[in-house]
């Protein structure tokens, strides 16, 4: 051992100190960065007894990160669903219910509330059947009801269009993230092979994965060469062997009744929709696809069933015992040639309208409500009030009971097949608000999971400033001591040289 060996060791200590300081600086400057994994300088003793920063480690925790990503996907799924449902729920907004000055409650503008208004108007008409203004009241209530159904159906299509364009931007985001991932992954693979510092590339990789899980639920596999493979939560490959798969989607700008949107494809395999063999379960894409293809159309089908129920409840039949067909009465739709069957109702809610024959604003005769003949004023077979009495209530009573008597509905709308029109309309509101509430509760739950997982992950891998400060003090002390050592060795050299 010699004094020059001591100098070499002192030199290595200075270099190691600098390296450690650099790591601490990096940690401190990233204290506020989400998902930043704390770096650690790994020191080893060199053969000559000195010290050296052998490598910079990274306090990563793959399991916790996976948990963050999974809960992020679930939250994004519920967010997409909840947004769409609350838009639909606004069309039945009984949350904005106010009590009018007369004490009667205004129940928003759901078909159910409008149907109740129609029933009230019919009761009023029943008490004064010869009153034209009471008849006009019924026509106005009927027209409000058709408007409620029309706007409900329009809202369903608008939610589907919004979801479709949301899917377009989600797919674009996924593709751009996969492109970024390709280059980060290549850096990590080559860095691992050459032993370069890849900590920051790994941070970028983790951040990309979290962003990706926002759009689509993913699972990842770490490969021995440092690369990562990404699969959707349903098992479809998104990234493997250094190559990103192409995610493609053809948007549909305008939705009409019964139209189906396109599925999101990965390498030609659909990952959304009922035709998909491996449909994704979480992420914004899955939520939007569920909203567009399942939830909104189901509500639309319920509105169609209500419209169909109205048309058949108010239909007029041959009163003479003849063979004239049963035709739509007060409620009809453009191009109607008869009463549709419960199975063929697609689009009725957007087409339902008040029959022009009974609407004075369209040149009709309101008295036909009491007398019958709305279906065809020129055909006396549809006349119920054969004596022409001014206070004939037989037909009005039929109309009142038609809204409360049991009807048959299509099972496809998911609300049962047999109930009264007003019960069905109420069930539809319950269904929608129930879905809305469930999605909202799920969203709250998933959001708190995300925040818990993020906190856990951050605590395990993140930076604590106090720890870094303490480390800094240790390094500072070590630096001071090393400098003192250098002075001492230097003094020894001076004494030695002076002695010569």
């Amino acid at each position, binding site marked *: 051992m010699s004094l020059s060996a001591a100098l070499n060791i002192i030199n290595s200590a200075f270099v190691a100190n600098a390296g450690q300081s650099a790591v601490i600086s990096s940690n401190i400057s990233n204290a506020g960065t989400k998902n930043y994994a704390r770096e650690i300088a790994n020191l080893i003793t060199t053969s000559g007894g000195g010290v050296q920063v052998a490598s910079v480690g990274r306090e990563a925790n793959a399991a916790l990160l996976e948990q963050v990503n999974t809960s992020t996907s679930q939250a994004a799924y519920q967010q997409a669903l909840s947004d769409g449902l609350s838009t639909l729920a606004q069309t039945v907004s009984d*949350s904005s219910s106010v009590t009018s000055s007369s004490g009667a409650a205004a129940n928003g503008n759901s078909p159910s509330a409008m149907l109740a208004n129609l029933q009230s108007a019919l009761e009023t008409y029943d008490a004064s059947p010869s009153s034209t203004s009471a008849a006009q009241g019924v026509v106005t209530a009927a027209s409000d009801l058709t408007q409620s159904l029309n706007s409900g159906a329009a809202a369903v299509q608008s939610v589907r269009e919004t979801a479709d364009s949301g899917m377009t931007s989600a797919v674009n985001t996924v593709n751009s993230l996969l492109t970024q991932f390709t280059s980060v992954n290549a850096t990590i693979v080559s860095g691992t092979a050459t032993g370069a510092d890849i900590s920051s590339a790994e941070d970028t990789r983790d951040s990309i994965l979290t962003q990706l899980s926002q759009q689509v639920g993913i699972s990842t596999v770490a490969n021995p060469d440092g690369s990562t493979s990404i699969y959707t939560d349903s098992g479809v490959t998104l990234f493997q062997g250094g190559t990103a798969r192409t995610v493609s989607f053809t948007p549909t700008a305008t939705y009409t009744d019964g139209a189906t949107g396109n599925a999101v494809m990965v390498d030609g395999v659909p990952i959304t929709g009922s035709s998909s063999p491996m449909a994704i379960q979480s992420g914004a894409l899955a939520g939007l696809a569920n909203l567009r293809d399942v939830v909104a159309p189901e509500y639309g089908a319920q509105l169609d069933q209500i419209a169909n129920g109205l048309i058949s409840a108010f239909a007029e039949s041959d009163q003479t015992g003849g063979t004239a067909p049963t035709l739509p009465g007060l409620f009809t739709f453009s191009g109607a040639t008869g009463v549709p069957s419960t199975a063929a109702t697609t689009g009725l809610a957007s087409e339902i309208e008040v029959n022009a024959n009974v609407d004075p604003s369209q040149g009709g005769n309101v008295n036909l409500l009491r007398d019958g003949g709305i279906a065809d004023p020129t055909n006396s077979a549809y006349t119920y009030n054969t004596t022409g009495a001014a206070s004939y209530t037989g037909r009005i009573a039929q109309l009142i009971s038609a809204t409360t008597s049991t009807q048959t509905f299509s099972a496809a709308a998911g609300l049962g097949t047999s109930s009264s029109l007003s019960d069905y309309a109420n069930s539809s509101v319950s269904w929608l608000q129930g879905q809305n509430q469930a999605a909202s509760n799920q969203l709250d739950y998933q959001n708190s999971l995300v925040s818990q997982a993020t906190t856990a992950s951050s605590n395990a891998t993140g*930076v604590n400033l106090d720890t870094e400060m303490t480390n800094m003090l240790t390094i500072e002390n070590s630096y001071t001591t090393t400098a003192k050592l250098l002075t001492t060795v230097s003094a020894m050299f001076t004494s030695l040289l002076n002695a010569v």
Partner: protein
Amino acid sequence: MASIVSTYSLGTAMLSSMAQAQNQLTQLTAEASSGQYADLGLQLGDQSGYELSLRNQTNLLQSLTTANSLTVTNLETAQAAIDSMRTDAQNALTSLTSITAGATGAASSLQSAGTNALQSLIASANVTSNGQYVFGGDNTGVAPMADYFSATTSAAKSAIDAAFQTTFGFAPTSASAANISSSQMQSFISGTFANLFSGASWTSNWSSASSTDVTTQIAPGESATTSTDLNQPGFQQLAEGYAMLAEFGGSSLSSTTQQAVITAASSLINQGVSSLTTTEATLGSAQTRVTDATTSMSNQLTILQTQIGNLDNVNASAVAVQLNSLSTQLETAYQLTAQLQKMSLAQYLPV
């Protein structure tokens, strides 16, 4: 080493709890001011349809209640008209008993009693309520009783004149009427003449009313007959008695024949009064049904309001307590944030 808390999570933990508290604060403020849940649809979920059905039922009951008050007005108008018909009939009977058959002026008194009574019967039968003829059955748009005394001879009067002419061979005003025996007169009155006041003769000459009465919904699923019509026997009997006096009372009849007319007319008017009582009783029971239905609906409305309140309303005192504790919680969070910012080693290290 003890598990560390990262500086990032230390900062954000407080942030998210503050955001949550502020969110809740706006919601609670809205609930405190309105007394209802801030977002009913979200709060009730599956129960929304049930709540809506309660509200819809409330609206329905309210409009039925309004409609019932209209029906009650119609019923009361009809009963008042019948009351006045009965009074007129009693007056006519009183004047009949004061007339002695064969006395001087008896004929003109009889004729004017019949004419006056028939005129007021027609007026009472054609009363309206809300523009509706209450005795028209369901044909409320047309005056139910034809004007017997119209300028152009009414169908009813022509039919009576023709029947008299056919039976006796001369008009009621002819001096030959003195030769009609009381038995001849009695058989005419109870036969040919009586037939003019029933069946098709009545509905074609006297009445435009429909025999179908108005049926009205008075409560959900409950309907009642809420009017009567001019084709009831009471109206026919009164018209018959009055017309008999108006047409034959003034004829130059023998005193026995005149007495026969007085007896027949009195008997018909008496029958008419008792038939009217039956009709009025029917109307009265309809009115009771309507009133009972309204009372029961008003009870239902109270129950409905309570149920809606149970679903929609927040507990005001609970909201107030929550608001208080929430603002305390927020203040604590603010203070803690300030304290935590100070708690850093950087504050204590020499620079």
